[in-house]
């Protein structure tokens, strides 16, 4: 009896004065959507930092392939690890492949998706639609832990005999079927761990998507009709559907490849395959490597929009607040995002032009790919036009959001040439592709997410982030992102291949003055390698102010003046700060659209969704479309 009593008392010591939950239940095994959102955010930021580190090692290898890693990159490795994976301290091709594959996987599946969709989505969505929590809080908790388990499973393989996965982030078969084949226990091979981790991540995402969609469908507050939902929630709705329907085929592919690797089936192994280590593979054959690619890219392309939509959603929330203007074209934007979601399912094979698809189907995918740029352009244009005539407050979130627009624009526009079959045949697997999608993801999506971080930080902590450190973070990031990524486009058009781990044959061809397949054009642009790497290292330094700012501001940032420091209209600002368990202190309802700024018929320049209309006037619905 006494033991129990002690245990309870012990729990009380850690109690917050608001609730009776013990510490571990409140902050670790939590079912509260806000805590889970924060857990996601912190985990994802850590994974992003790790992925960034992998990238720096790779950039070192590309710029200075003949030199050992410098101390500031290699201190993290033990001597034994270095002896196994580095050659005289230099990055080997195998290690580069491993880092490349894991950089891609970590950034996409463990960094940006959890940060954009899971962290922001979890924290903001229930607040914005005016409900107390997600529909299935326990499921929500399970999503997070499955995600963490999946991420750790993948990363654990760095320390195994095989090392982590090395077959690219796309894990193409049949290469990925046989990589690490020498490992006796296939479940402990990096390549298999990748698949196991992926199955866990997919399961986590599926549960998350079910949860989000149910919440959005069934738990909206009184008066929160579909067209009164903030754009952010619409983005989450579409993202949820993308995850729900696009991930299962990848799960199928992962399970099939898992079978191929562990029990020797031949789903993706063609007949008569020969490898240098095993000779003619002892497998039944009869499988189809292309099937893997189809299943992978059926997820792969919607996944791009899973990355993008949360970022665009953050920006779409921040712009109206800081321009004090309604979002321009709310309805077209909603329709665009829905159509975008649909179209993203029928464009996937533009990643596969080089696999020998026939001309008819190539034309189909080329056409749909070009089509999908229409809703994307509508979204971006609406955001840009939203700035027009506004009295813009250039606070930190707005700076990031403003930078998002042109940066994402470059990313999108450089994608257009890749949509065309003929151009893609030339540019496929060059640094042009790398440049294109990094422009989309890094200065594009990440800037959007940074904007969101700065924007909602006060709601989460009750304090603003420091502006000076913020500028110190923003400006160098903006400059060095471009120093890092713009040269990629140039090099790519010259034919610089994305998998050249040692700065490419380019160094050799320069030295020997030889010609490669692209003539000597690669060599002409080879001097950009160190420049880009310099950009990468400076970009890393530029993140230091952010880290300091982030932790410092939690404890010492400027306190916010009230619960709605930006005079915003959406429901998350109607809660106490930080929102308690249960979120709202009053019976919340939405009386109007989400972006009622600077209305002539209302005093003050904003009219919050939750503010009850005056009694004496008959409640007349204001038009939700801000165009008037």
């Amino acid at each position: 009896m006494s033991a129990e009593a002690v245990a309870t008392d012990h729990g009380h010591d850690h109690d917050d004065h608001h609730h009776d939950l013990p510490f571990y239940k409140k902050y670790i095994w939590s079912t509260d959507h806000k805590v889970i959102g924060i857990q996601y955010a912190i985990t994802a930021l850590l994974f992003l930092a790790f992925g960034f580190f992998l990238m720096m090692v790779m950039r070192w290898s590309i710029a200075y392939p003949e030199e050992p890693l410098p101390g500031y990159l290699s201190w993290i490795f033990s001597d034994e690890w270095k002896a196994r994976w580095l050659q005289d301290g230099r990055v080997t091709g195998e290690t580069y492949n491993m880092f490349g594959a894991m950089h891609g996987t970590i950034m996409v599946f463990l960094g940006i998706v959890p940060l954009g969709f899971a962290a922001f989505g979890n924290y903001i969505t229930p607040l914005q639609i005016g409900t107390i929590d997600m529909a299935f809080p326990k499921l929500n908790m399970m999503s997070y832990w499955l995600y963490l388990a999946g991420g750790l499973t993948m990363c654990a393989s760095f320390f195994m005999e095989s090392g982590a996965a090395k077959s690219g982030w796309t894990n193409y078969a049949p290469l990925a079927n046989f990589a690490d084949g020498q490992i006796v226990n296939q479940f402990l091979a990096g390549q298999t761990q990748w698949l196991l981790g992926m199955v866990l991540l997919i399961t986590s995402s599926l549960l998350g998507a079910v949860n989000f969609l149910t919440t959005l469908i069934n738990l909206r507050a009184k008066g929160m009709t579909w067209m009164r939902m903030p754009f952010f929630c619409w983005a989450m709705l579409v993202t949820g559907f993308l995850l729900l329907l696009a991930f299962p085929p990848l799960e199928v592919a992962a399970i099939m490849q898992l079978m191929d690797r562990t029990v020797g089936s031949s789903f993706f192994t063609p007949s008569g395959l020969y490898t240098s280590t095993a000779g003619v593979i002892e497998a039944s054959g009869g499988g189809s490597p292309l099937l893997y690619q189809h299943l992978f890219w059926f997820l792969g392309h919607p996944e791009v929009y899973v990355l993008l939509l949360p970022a665009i959603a953050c920006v779409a929330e921040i712009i109206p607040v800081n321009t004090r203007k309604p979002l321009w074209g709310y309805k077209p934007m909603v329709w665009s995002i829905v159509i975008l979601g649909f179209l993203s399912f029928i464009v996937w094979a533009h990643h596969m032009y080089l696999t020998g698809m026939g001309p008819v189907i190539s034309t189909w995918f080329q056409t749909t790919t070009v089509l999908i740029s229409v809703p994307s352009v509508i979204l971006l244009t609406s955001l840009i036009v939203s700035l027009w005539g506004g009295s813009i407050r250039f606070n930190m979130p707005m700076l990031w959001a403003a930078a998002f627009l042109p940066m994402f624009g470059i990313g999108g526009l450089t994608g257009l040439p890749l949509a065309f079959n003929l151009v893609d045949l030339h540019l496929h697997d060059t640094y042009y592709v790398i440049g294109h999608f990094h422009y989309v993801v890094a200065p594009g999506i990440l800037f959007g997410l940074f904007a969101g971080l700065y924007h909602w930080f006060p709601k989460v902590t009750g304090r603003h982030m420091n502006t000076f450190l913020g500028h110190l973070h923003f400006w160098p990031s903006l400059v060095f992102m471009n120093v890092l990524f713009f040269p990629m486009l140039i090099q790519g058009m010259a034919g610089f291949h994305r998998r050249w781990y040692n700065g490419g044959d380019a160094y050799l061809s320069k030295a020997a003055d030889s010609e490669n397949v692209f003539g000597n054009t690669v060599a002409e642009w080879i001097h950009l390698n160190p420049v880009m790497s310099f950009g990468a290292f400076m970009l890393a330094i530029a993140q230091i102010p952010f880290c300091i700012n982030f932790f410092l501001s939690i404890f010492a940032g400027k306190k916010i003046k009230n619960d709605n420091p930006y005079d915003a209209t959406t429901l998350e600002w109607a809660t106490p700060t930080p929102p308690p368990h249960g979120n709202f202190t009053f019976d919340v309802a939405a009386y109007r659209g989400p972006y009622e700024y600077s209305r002539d018929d209302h005093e003050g320049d904003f009219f919050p969704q939750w503010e009850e209309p005056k009694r004496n006037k008959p409640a007349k619905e204001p038009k939700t479309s801000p165009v008037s």
Partner: protein
Amino acid sequence: MEIPYTVTARKDTGLFNSKVGIWLFLASEVMLFGGLFSGYVFLRIYADYPWPERALPIVPGLINTFVLIGSSVTVVFAWAALKMREWRKFQIYMGITIACAAIFMVLKGIEYKAKLEHQAVRMDDFAIIEGHAHYAVVGDDGKISHADTKTKAKKLSDSGAKPFKANAILFKPQTIDFSVARAHQPWVEAVLEQAAKRKSKLVTAEDLFLYGSIRDYAGTEQEPLSSKGRTNSEAELVAKYANAEEKAGHTFGERSLYIPAGTELSYDLVKQAREVYVSGRSHNAVARTAILKANWKKVKAARPEDKYWEQAPDARIDSATQLDEQFDSEGNCISGSKVVSVVSTLSFQMSPPQPIVIDRGWVKRPVKAQEGKAELRDDTSFNAGSAGDSAPGLLSSPLILAVDAIDFRWMAQKAEEAGKEPLEVIEKSWIFSEENKHAKYYKRIWKNHKARIAELEKELLEGYGRDKEGNAKRVPTETDRYRITWQDLVHYARVDQHEGRPPKPSDKEYADLRPKFWDGFAGPNHKDEEIHELHAFPELEIPHQKVSLQSMFTPKWNTYYAVYFTITGLHGLHVIGGAIVLGYYLFFSKGLYRRNPEWLANRVEVGGLFWHFVDLVWIFLFPILYLM
């Protein structure tokens, strides 16, 4: 604080949360199984080998279909009982449902077991032979004997050596090399155990020095150590070791190991060597990295103007030899003093050489007699004696099967592709040739088969007539012609051994002798006495070099079985998951029933929806996998 709409439906959607959730989840399940079915369709359509159509015994699948449909009815009754607030009835119906799930899984288990015990062999001439492999055992004298069951095989060895499936590899090594870094403990121990059983020893042939991180072993640049000096100091170490043997154990020097000739193999020894190896490798990596860094410093200081790729060749350190001991004309060691040579393989002699049974899954690539070695996946190498030696290495250990099906479809397909007459190619194949000492059984079976097919052809012609062009409307299929099933074998054996005159195919009683479709519940029954006495399943001795692929009926055998195991396995996991959830409602929900019966009814409805979906998937799986 309670989440709204867990029990009652929301007004505008008309749904409670978990119902929205389950349907969303089922939508993603549709994509999951949709992806699997798509995979199945494309693998089947594009298979470059004859697909095993209608390969599974129907009865277990049929019973399982009934069972699942029945459980679908009872689960909906269980829900209705709850709605009517009849707890007792709910318990009964739910109990039946869960019992059905158990029956389903047991039947599935029986089916799986039959597959996993069924051996299949693809010959190098594309004949496919199926059957049960005999067991083999290596006697204490090293002689190999076969028997058709495990118990019989066990009796063949006096000391009770372990019988193994005859598809294992038997190798008689002179020496075995173990990779220090990778030797796999269970395999090392298996080798040791077998050697001990056959009274053979594994010992090192010569003295071995393993160096971990000897500092300045060969002296320094300023003070080089002569090679004579090296030998002396080595001798000193040996002496030191010999003196200190009793006291100090096996280590001497700095993290080093001395293994005198004649040391017996043990995994501990390998482990000790591994520690030394790892530390030696780390030591070298650190030393070489430092040297490379120093080189670069020198080169950059000397030629700062030069481009990177011009400096690189001078800074490079080429290979281990340049860094290892370099001697001047007087025999003084002048460079590479810091790098030690690491021992990565330990070689053991087997005396006297005895056969070792190697599992097929252990080898890196198929073992060929002329190569004189067998390489395992952990880099262990079994070496036969040198060329001209009497020791053969790979022992002939034929795979002996009790054959229960022969399939010439693939051979016929290959023959047709090559423009040859299939029947001629088949009749000239190995199985009917002089080389096969059991050929006469098979010639007889083939004769019977041809007679039956001729009769079938006649019957079809008589039954359905000819079309306008004079061709028979219906003809026997490729499967009829070229696949001899176990039913055929039993049939022919019964015909041949019919009391009195064997009936002709045209006789009425001929057809009566054929096994019925419920015979052989989960496949051919080798144990059935009647069949056994018939000798319906004759023996066949297959030399290993004639085999191009062998496997049990596992996913490895071909993509059909891969699909079968993957889809039914996933479906089985769904059944188990569903049964656990329903079981929870049955056994742990009385309290909830008393408190809030409507809530429990909702839960059961949702669980039931999942259960119906599992049933629905099976409704498709049954015809696709069993009937097509």
